[in-house]
C-alpha cells in the first residue's frame, strides 16, 4: 500500500512535544504537455516539532525543492494536508493564507536570483514588515539595521543594491529578510549550495546561531548529505518524489535501512585520503528514471542492488515503516540492507 494510509498522527512521531508542522500525504503533480504529468512529490508525510532541524536530502529531480515550496504554500498542493500550528494551510486562500506567512518563511538557494535587483537591501529586508504594515519610519529603519547586524552585515549598507554584494553577503540579506517577521519555521532551500566552501561554513554557523537565539525551527533542504547531516537532528531521504528513509542524523552514517541511502552515503567523498582509499562504492545501475513515468512498485527497484524484480519490489510499493525506534524506511527488505549491500 502507498504511504497514503499512514495514520496521520504517527509518521515518524517526534520524540517529544507537539509537532509544529504536520504534512500528510502531500502530492504535487505538474502537467507537462498532453496527458503527461510529472509526479514531483507523490505522497509524502512527515512532522516537524518545534525547535528542531529536519534535513531533507536527495539528488536533483527528487522533489525536495518542490516539497519545500509546498510546505510554504508558494505552490498549491495537488492533494494532501499541510498543518502548520494547528491550521491546514492547503484550505486557506488569499488573505488568510497571507497572514500565516508571518510565521513561515523561506530562504532560497540562489542568492543572486532571490533579491530584487531594483530594490535597495534596506527595502528588501523591510518588505515583509511593509506587507503586514508592522513598522514604519524610523522604527522600521532601526529594525532593518538591527537585522543587518544580526546577520553580520554592516548596518549602514541598507541603501545599497544587491549587485554590490558577494554571494555570501547576499545570502545573509536573504536570511535577514526571512527573520524580519520573527517566524517560527524557516524552510532553507539549499541555502549554501551556491556558495564557496569557506563561505558555506559562515552561513551554516550563522543559521545555527540564529536558531539558538530566536528559537527557530528549520527544514533544511540540500543535495549534500554531509551538510544536511551536520545541521539536522533528523534526516529525511527522498527519491523520485517519495520519502525512502527517515533517521536521526547521528545514526544515519552508522547504519542504513534503505539501499538507496546506503548507495548515496557510499558515493560521498570524504576529504581524507586514507578513508577514500578504502571506500567501496555501491554503484547504482542506470539512470534516475523519469518522474513522468516512474517505475512500478518500489520506485528504486530498477537500480536497486537487492531488488526482487520481477517480484514484490516491482509489484508492490513498500510503505514507510518504523524499522527500529525512530528509524523509518520504505523497503521490503530492510533487513538485508545491512548484510547484503
Amino acid at each position, binding site marked *: 500500500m502507498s504511504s497514503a494510509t499512514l495514520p496521520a498522527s504517527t509518521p515518524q512521531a517526534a520524540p517529544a512535544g507537539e509537532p509544529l508542522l504536520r504534512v500528510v500525504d502531500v502530492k504535487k503533480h505538474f502537467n507537462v504537455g498532453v496527458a503527461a504529468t510529472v509526479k514531483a512529490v507523490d505522497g509524502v508525510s512527515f512532522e516537524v516539532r518545534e525547535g528542531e532541524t529536519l534535513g531533507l536530502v536527495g*539528488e536533483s529531480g527528487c522533489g525536495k525543492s518542490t516539497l519545500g515550496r509546498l510546505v510554504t504554500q508558494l505552490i498549491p498542493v495537488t492533494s494532501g494536508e499541510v498543518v502548520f500550528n494547528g491550521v491546514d494551510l492547503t484550505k486557506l486562500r488569499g488573505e488568510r493564507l497571507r497572514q500565516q506567512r508571518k510565521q513561515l518563511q523561506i530562504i532560497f538557494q540562489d542568492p543572486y536570483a532571490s533579491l530584487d535587483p531594483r530594490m535597495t537591501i534596506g527595502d528588501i529586508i523591510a518588505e515583509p514588515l511593509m506587507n503586514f504594515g508592522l513598522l514604519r519610519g524610523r522604527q522600521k529603519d532601526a529594525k532593518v539595521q538591527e537585522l543587518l547586524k544580526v546577520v553580520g552585515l554592516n548596518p549602514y549598507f541598507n541603501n545599497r543594491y544587491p549587485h554590490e554584494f558577494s554571494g555570501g553577503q547576499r545570502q545573509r540579506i536573504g536570511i535577514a529578510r526571512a527573520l524580519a517577521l520573527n517566524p517560527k519555521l524557516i524552510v532553507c532551500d539549499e541555502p549554501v549550495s551556491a556558495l564557496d566552501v569557506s563561505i558555506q561554513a559562515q552561513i551554516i554557523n550563522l543559521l545555527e546561531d540564529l536558531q539558538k537565539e530566536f528559537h527557530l525551527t528549520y527544514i533544511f533542504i540540500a*543535495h549534500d548529505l*554531509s551538510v544536511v547531516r551536520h545541521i539536522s537532528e533528523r534526516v529525511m531521504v527522498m527519491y523520485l518524489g517519495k520519502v525512502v528513509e527517515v533517521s536521526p542524523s547521528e545514526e544515519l552514517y552508522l547504519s542504513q535501512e534503505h539501499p538507496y541511502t546506503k548507495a548515496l552515503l557510499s558515493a*560521498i567523498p*570524504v576529504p581524507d585520503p586514507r578513508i577514500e582509499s578504502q571506500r567501496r562504492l555501491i554503484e547504482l545501475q542506470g539512470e534516475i528514471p523519469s518522474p513522468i513515468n516512474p517505475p512500478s512498485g518500489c520506485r528504486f527497484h530498477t537500480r536497486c542492488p537487492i531488488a526482487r524484480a520481477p517480484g514484490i519490489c516491482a509489484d508492490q510499493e513498500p510503505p514507510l515503516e518504523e524499522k527500529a525506534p525512530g528509524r523509518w524506511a520504505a523497503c521490503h527488505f530492510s533487513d538485508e540492507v545491512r548484510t547484503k549491500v
Partner: protein
Amino acid sequence: MLEVKHLSTSFFTDDGEVKAVRDVTFDLFPGETLGIVGESGCGKSVTAMSVLGLVQRPGKIVGGQILFKDRDLTKLNSEELRQIRGRDIAMIFQDPLSSLNPVLRVGFQIDEAMFAHDKIAKEDVPERGVNLLKQVRVPDAQRRVKDYPHQFSGGMRQRAMIAMGLSNRPELLIADEPTTALDVTVQAQILELLRDLNQEMGTSIILITHNLGVVAGLCKRVVVMYAGEIVEEGPVEQIFESPQHPYTWSLLRSLPRVDEKRHERLKSIEGLPPDLIAPPPGCKFNPRCPFRIEKCFSEDPPLEMVGTAQQAKCWVTMKRAYAEMNAATITDTRPGAASGVRPPAELLQVVADLRTLEEPEVLETLAENPQLLEQMVSEEPAALEQLVADHPAVAEKLVTEETAAAVDGAAEDEKSE
C-alpha cells in the same frame, strides 16, 4: 612531463588588471594525478586554460613558461598549439551540457576530435568512436553515437566528453571541475572511471576542483590555490594529514564531513577572498587569517619547503602556530584571533585623526582615500560607528561614495573564473 614555471595570467578589464594567476610553479610526472583545489576566483581554471592557450581576450599570459616535453607552450604559434590541443593534452569541462555542441551529433563530435589530428587512421575513426563510448561505459553505444547531446543524461554527457578527450590517446587529461554539475552518485561513477583510465592507460590527469573530498579520492599530489597563487603543494596524504598553510588548514576544518562523529561547530573562514585588482599588501590571506603576524601585512611570504615534498607559502605555518600559540584560541577563526595581531597601526592613527577634524574635512579625507572606509568596515567597525555618530554625513558617504575605478570589479572577477 609538464613543467609550469612562474606562470602569470591577467585579465585586462576596464577597471584594471585582474591578476588571476600569478607566479604559479608546479610540475607533473607521467602517469601522475595532480589535484588543483581552491575556491571560485582563485585562478585554478585560468591556470588550466593557460596551459592549453585557451585564455580568451581580455585575458593574456603575461609571464612564465609552460614546458611540455621540453617545448614551451607559451612560445608556440597558434597552429603548433592547435596540434597539441586534443592530441597530446586533452581537456574536459565542468558543465557537460553546455560543453557539447547542441546541434551536432555526439558521435560526430567525438570523431571530429580524431579527424582534427592525424593520429588515428581516417578509416578507423567511426569504429573507434563507438568503442570509446563503450570504454567509458555508455550503454548501447552503437546506437547512441547518433544521438544529440540533449538526449543524453548529465552523467552520460560527461562520459562522452571523456571519450572525446581520450580519442587521440593524449598523455595528459586536464579535467576542470568534471563532476561539479553532477549528482553525487554520478560523480562517484565518473571519478571511478577517471581512476580506472589513469591506471589502465597511464594517462596523467590534472583534476581541478573545489571539492577536497574529490581530490582525496583521486589524486596523488595536490596544489592549493588562493587569490591566484599557490599557497600549498605536496602529496595528498601529507597535506590532508598536516596542512601547513592556515588557508588549507581552515578549509579542511570548515567542511562538514559525512563521517563526523558528533556535532561540532564548523571552523569557518571569516571574510571574503580579496579583490584581485587591488589585493592587500603582504600575504594575500592576511585579512582572513587567524594566525597572522605583523610581517604578514608587509611582506609576501615565499613558497618554501615545510616537510618532505611539501611546500607552503606562509610566514607562520601551522607547525609554528601549534607550537607557539595558545591551543585554546586556535579554534577561534576570526581574523587575527589566535595571534591577536591587528592590522598595521596606521589605520588606528588615521581614525584617531579623523575624529579631531571637522565634518567637511572628514568627508574630504574619505573622498581622497576610498580604501579607508572599506578598511574601517572590516577592521575597525567600532571606530566607524563612533565616526558616524559624530558625523552623520559619513553615513551618507558610506552609501553614495563614488569610486569610478572600482565599478563592476566584482562582476568581472566572477566572469574571469
